[in-house]
């Protein structure tokens, strides 16, 4: 099955009409030695019902969140996604559109991105948001490159308590740009230990950090600025419904994963990495930006702007090579935030925090678990398992029909007996109670 509308006869006729006898002559320019002698070895073509059956079988070999209440987070969270979102994303005018380079016929996408940028600024308390990046790890890498360019320094400080997915990507990018990464340890409260930053381009911390602990961004930012380094925070946007904004806390750059704002988990993507900065960094920020202007009739309209920063103009002098913005994911975020509004968003965030605190208390009361860190946490927390090992606990959880937590030893050998658990507003008290009981019985 393919999607070519014309028949072979029509094609022949079309070519004949412009003097081409045989379609094969169009490929004569390929050197003989380079021509494929046999078709590549692929599965035989499938019709639509066959595709449904094949993919259905593959999907059924997975164990998705809908079937088993999940307590796994570590950067990706099982929040409720309202039905409206997928209906908006399924509008063909949105998902089959190209990048909005022709503003006269792209006001839908452009307006939605402008709304997205506005919402990100209001969540983060910063001046300017771009239209989105691939994901939060990429946003971290872009932050690093932007900070190195802006400060002309080549060292960055990164809290050890950031998501390991993020620090690994930073390491990949840094090695080719001769940027040095120095990790900052965490203390007993789970918070980053700060130091003198006067040789740093920027300090990157995550809050709530990988252990769920809320960092003291004011302190980090003040120390960064003392050393003329930039302060960058990876902040979960849902947590910003309740927590002090990075802008208010003195950060220069905020970025993070927007998955928790209406995007399905989708086995790791697509998501969208947001990024917002203070005005002074606007022209150094990577990615697309939509701006407001007027048309020749004086009507308000939106357009991609500040494009002189971008790769298609600067080529090898560009500070970033990015040329897409996960637009459809950013649209999902915009619809999500519009649906929930300030009250709904605070409710989703607050219920997540309340339920996480409830599970944590419940587990600790059994005497088989204890909190690893003393700091305040949001939605996610680390417990030390005094009885069975984290791996045993997770396999018991699986048998009981749950998805357990993240085994911290995967990335933090010093926390080999610790489990990271996340609770979203979707979990009911009954689910949490049963999960806690099962865990205590292992």
């Amino acid at each position: 099955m393919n999607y070519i509308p014309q028949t072979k006869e029509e094609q022949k006729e079309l070519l004949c009409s412009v003097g081409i006898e045989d379609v094969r002559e169009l490929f004569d320019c390929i050197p003989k030695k380079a021509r494929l002698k046999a078709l590549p070895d692929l599965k035989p073509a499938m019709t639509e019902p066959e595709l449904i059956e094949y993919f259905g079988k593959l999907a059924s070999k997975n164990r998705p969140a809908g079937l088993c209440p999940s307590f796994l987070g570590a950067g990706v969270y099982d929040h409720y996604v309202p039905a409206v979102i997928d209906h908006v994303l399924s509008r063909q005018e949105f998902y089959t559109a190209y990048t909005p380079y022709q503003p006269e016929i792209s006001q839908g996408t452009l307006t939605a991105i402008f709304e997205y940028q506005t919402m990100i600024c209001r969540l983060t308390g910063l001046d300017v948001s771009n239209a989105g990046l691939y994901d939060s790890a990429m946003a971290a890498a872009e932050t690093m490159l932007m900070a190195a360019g802006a400060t002309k320094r080549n060292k960055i400080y990164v809290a050890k308590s950031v998501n390991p997915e993020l620090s690994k990507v930073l390491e990949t990018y840094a090695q080719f740009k001769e940027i040095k990464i120095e990790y900052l340890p965490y203390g007993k409260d789970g918070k980053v230990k700060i130091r003198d930053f006067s040789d740093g381009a920027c300090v990157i911390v995550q809050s709530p950090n990988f252990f769920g602990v809320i960092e003291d961004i004011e302190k980090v930012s003040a120390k960064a600025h003392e050393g003329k380094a930039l302060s960058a925070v990876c902040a979960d946007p849902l947590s910003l419904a309740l927590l002090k904004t990075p802008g208010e806390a003195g950060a220069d750059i905020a970025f993070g994963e927007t998955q928790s704002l209406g995007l399905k988990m989708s086995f790791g993507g697509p998501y969208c990495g947001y990024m917002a900065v203070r005005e002074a960094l606007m022209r150094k920020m990577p990615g697309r930006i939509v701006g407001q202007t007027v048309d020749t009739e004086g009507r308000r309209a939106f357009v991609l702007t500040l494009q002189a920063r971008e790769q298609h103009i600067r080529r090898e002098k560009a500070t970033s090579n990015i040329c897409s913005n996960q637009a459809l994911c950013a649209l999902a975020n915009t619809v999500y935030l519009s649906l929930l509004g300030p009250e709904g968003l605070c409710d989703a965030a607050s219920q997540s925090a309340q339920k996480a605190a409830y599970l944590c208390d419940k587990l600790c009361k059994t005497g088989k678990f204890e909190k690893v860190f003393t700091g305040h946490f949001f939605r996610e927390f680390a417990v030390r398992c005094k009885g069975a090992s984290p791996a045993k606990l997770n396999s018991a959880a699986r048998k009981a029909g749950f998805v357990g937590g993240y085994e911290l030893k995967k990335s933090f050998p010093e926390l080999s007996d610790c489990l990271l658990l996340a609770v979203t507003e979707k979990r009911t008290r009954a689910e949490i109670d049963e999960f806690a009981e099962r865990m205590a019985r292992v």
Partner: protein
Amino acid sequence: MSKVIDGLYYSKEHEWVKVEGNEALIGITDYAQDALGDLVYADCGTVGAAVSAGDAVAVLESVKAASDVYSPVSGTVTRINEELSDAPEKINADAFGNFLFAVELSDKSELDTLMDASAYEDFCKEEH
């Protein structure tokens, strides 16, 4: 045809240099402003920066283009034209009347490597 003014030095990167005593004012030529189009942003560099001939000092942006502006001479940046940060369009209106930055010359002999007005005029014709 773009305007060219006598008495200035010109570089192949389309900068002009006006020497006043030991200081050189540097801007972009009329030809360059025309090629860039409506300017939307000008970053004229940093006072006190030490530059060698050929170093990028300033950045100009139009809607569809971005360009570094190089210093054709070596020395120290003594002044920048701060008016341009709010009104980059002044360069479009009068490229020769609006310098971007000034350099205290450390080696006057470098000026000999630059073009005069008529040589620059010929150079532009070739470029086109």
